[in-house]
């Protein structure tokens, strides 16, 4: 079960920020794709439909949901909320705001709130995304502890993944085994992508019915959530015995991950971590493969969303500070063997970096 004190802590921090910014009402939006803003405010991990939380600095929170089947769950899993079923959440929240009179309203993320809210609001709604982003990125020790625990679960779940990834199994059957193991251990949510094959595989996707074959690289990012906080592990295994080419290629990713993690400490920028990873590829003549043609990011924030800020890229100048949690993953395509994934969840500490995931950084294979 979720810790109620964590929700109270988050709301207190939000109230302080709102007061400092002169915001009277914050409207947070969420759905099952991206629920972190809504979760931060309401403590509700939305799954179906979409929702808006209307929060004021006195701690009052009204939650509007458009899935009737989510109402029971919201009343059971949250505390101190006024939960309402609404078949038109944008219009109903606009009416709710109007009843509050002349107030300064911000929404996060403003771009995603239902169109009817901005069309029908009686006041201009400011963009409160950055205000909440700041809270989402800079975590308290209690929040970091949740990510640490989720990382431990990720390590354990990867053992199940390795056991399930056998020749002849379809990708979706492998993922089913992992999901079931997570449910059996009371883990409600997980972000997970998979790929298998050789040089034909350029990225990860949801599981397909492709069957694992001898010599396939099997890549995954596995991202369970504990109390709503996600942590990620990225690893690669080989069905059967790894080839020398696969081992040689993998060694570059180990070097890049170690370089990235070594760069993590307070005061450096996200771009410094990305550069440390990418320099390793450039040193090995693979500079082309750290561009957007072949890969997306060199890591990303972890917390109430599986892919949050900061993105670890050479053009992101977010300063790293203690309490930030993210995954460092130099995942990219290798023209000799295919896409390789390797990544660990970390947090920035007062003196450097703590690595949460403990699974060995090896290319697992049938002989491992």
């Amino acid at each position, binding site marked *: 079960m979720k810790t109620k004190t964590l929700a109270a802590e988050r709301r207190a921090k939000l109230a302080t920020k709102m007061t400092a910014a002169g915001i009277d009402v914050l409207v947070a939006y969420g759905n099952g*794709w991206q629920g972190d803003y809504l979760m931060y405010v309401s403590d509700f991990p939305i799954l*179906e439909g979409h929702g808006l939380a209307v929060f004021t600095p006195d701690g009052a929170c009204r939650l509007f949901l458009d899935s009737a089947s989510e109402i029971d769950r919201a009343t059971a899993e949250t505390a101190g909320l006024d939960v309402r079923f609404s078949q038109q959440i944008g219009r109903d929240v606009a009416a709710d705001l109007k009843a509050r009179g002349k107030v300064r309203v911000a929404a996060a993320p403003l771009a995603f709130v239902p169109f009817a809210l*901005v069309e029908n609001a009686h006041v201009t709604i400011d963009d409160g995304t950055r205000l909440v982003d700041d809270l989402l990125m800079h975590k308290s020790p209690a929040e970091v502890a949740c990510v640490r625990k989720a990382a431990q679960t990720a390590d354990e779940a990867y053992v199940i993944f390795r056991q399930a990834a056998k020749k002849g199994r379809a990708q979706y059957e492998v993922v*089913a085994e992992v999901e079931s193991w997570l449910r*059996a251990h009371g883990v409600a949510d997980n972000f997970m992508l998979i790929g298998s094959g050789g040089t034909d595989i350029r*990225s990860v996707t*949801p599981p*397909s019915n492709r069957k694992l074959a001898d010599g396939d690289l099997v890549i995954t990012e596995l991202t369970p959530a504990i109390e709503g906080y996600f942590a990620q592990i990225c690893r690669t295994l080989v069905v059967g015995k790894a080839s020398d080419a696969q081992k040689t290629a993998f060694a570059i990713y180990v070097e890049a991950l170690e370089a990235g993690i070594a760069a993590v400490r307070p005061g450096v920028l996200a771009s410094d971590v990305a550069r440390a990873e990418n320099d390793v590829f450039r040193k090995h003549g693979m500079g082309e493969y750290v561009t957007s043609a072949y890969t997306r990011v060199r890591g990303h924030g972890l917390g109430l969303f599986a892919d949050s800020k900061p993105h670890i890229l050479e053009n992101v100048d977010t300063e790293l500070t203690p309490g930030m949690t993210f995954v460092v993953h130099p995942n990219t395509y290798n023209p000799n063997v295919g896409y390789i994934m390797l990544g660990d969840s970390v947090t920035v500490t007062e003196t450097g970096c703590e690595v949460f995931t403990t699974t060995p950084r090896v290319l697992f294979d049938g002989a491992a």
Partner: protein
Amino acid sequence: MRRGLIEWSKTELPESVFDTRIAAMRKAMAAGKIDALVAYTNFTRTSAVSWLCDFIPYWSECALVLPKTGPLTMVSAVSPRGKPWVEGTTYSEILLFSPKIGDETARVLKEALPAGSTIGVVELDEVPAALGLALKATGTAVVDATDAFVAARAAGDAAGIGLAKTAAGFAHKALSAIDANGTDAAAAVAAVDLAARKLGAEESYVAVAPDLRADRRLLRLEGPAKLGDVYALRATVAYKGTWVRMIRTVVRNDSRGLVRAATEQLAAALAELPRLDKLGAMESWLVETSRAAQPLEAVAGSAVPHTKAFAPGALVSVQAATVIDGTPILIGSPAIAGSAGTAGAFLLAPSF
């Protein structure tokens, strides 16, 4: 995100199905004087777009543009590296990639539509503000096209019912995987989840009410819980864009046949669908269907303030609570609403 099997089965959903649906949509657009239709999809509002072109985003968001003539165009925020995956799961003729789908969709429409045109948006109220504002900024009239979409879809098709039957079969088999004598709620949830996903479900959400005598709410389990003497699990299963719910209540030592009696009670009540003011003798109840973008939208129920009409013969998922001989029982199943001369009935009876 979706962690189940997403693939376009051209056996179950041949291209001719989409041709027929698109033709029906264009007919409804013409009736509503709509020159181009925009349908939005993300992780949770998938149904309008998947009905038109099969596509279901496992993550991220997309907008689909259907002009009254011309190619079906999808604007996707998925990374361009995901193009092969998107191409393999959509009937769209043109694929565009942009992180700002609102701006790109507006550009496409501005180039395609002559002055005086009208853009119709499915569930205009519910689309992201960024998309709605970008469309409005084109200077072209923007109207809600939900009614037109619902009208086009109301006719139903055999392919859609076929997918629902498969999904219902998955849900039934998954709920049958429970060890009825077990006491570990997490183990029961895991068994249902594993069975549904291994059968090929696109998604599986399992909720549990571990002790119905204490609390009738169906919850997503986080952490351990013990199953009581009367407990229920709900399987929400998606298969190729079609979603159904089924509920199984277990009454330990059910010598009086309470669960069977509840099933018969619901079967009798379903016969009256699409009557919307009550559901037989059920204490509380909910009817969900997919009208537009939501896979399971509440259209009627004991706690639903505004009932929404659904077509005779429509696929619905019904959840209900009843009390028999002092024992609370939750029951639910996909059903087909009655039509002229035909009573509403279970698509697949929740008998275990």
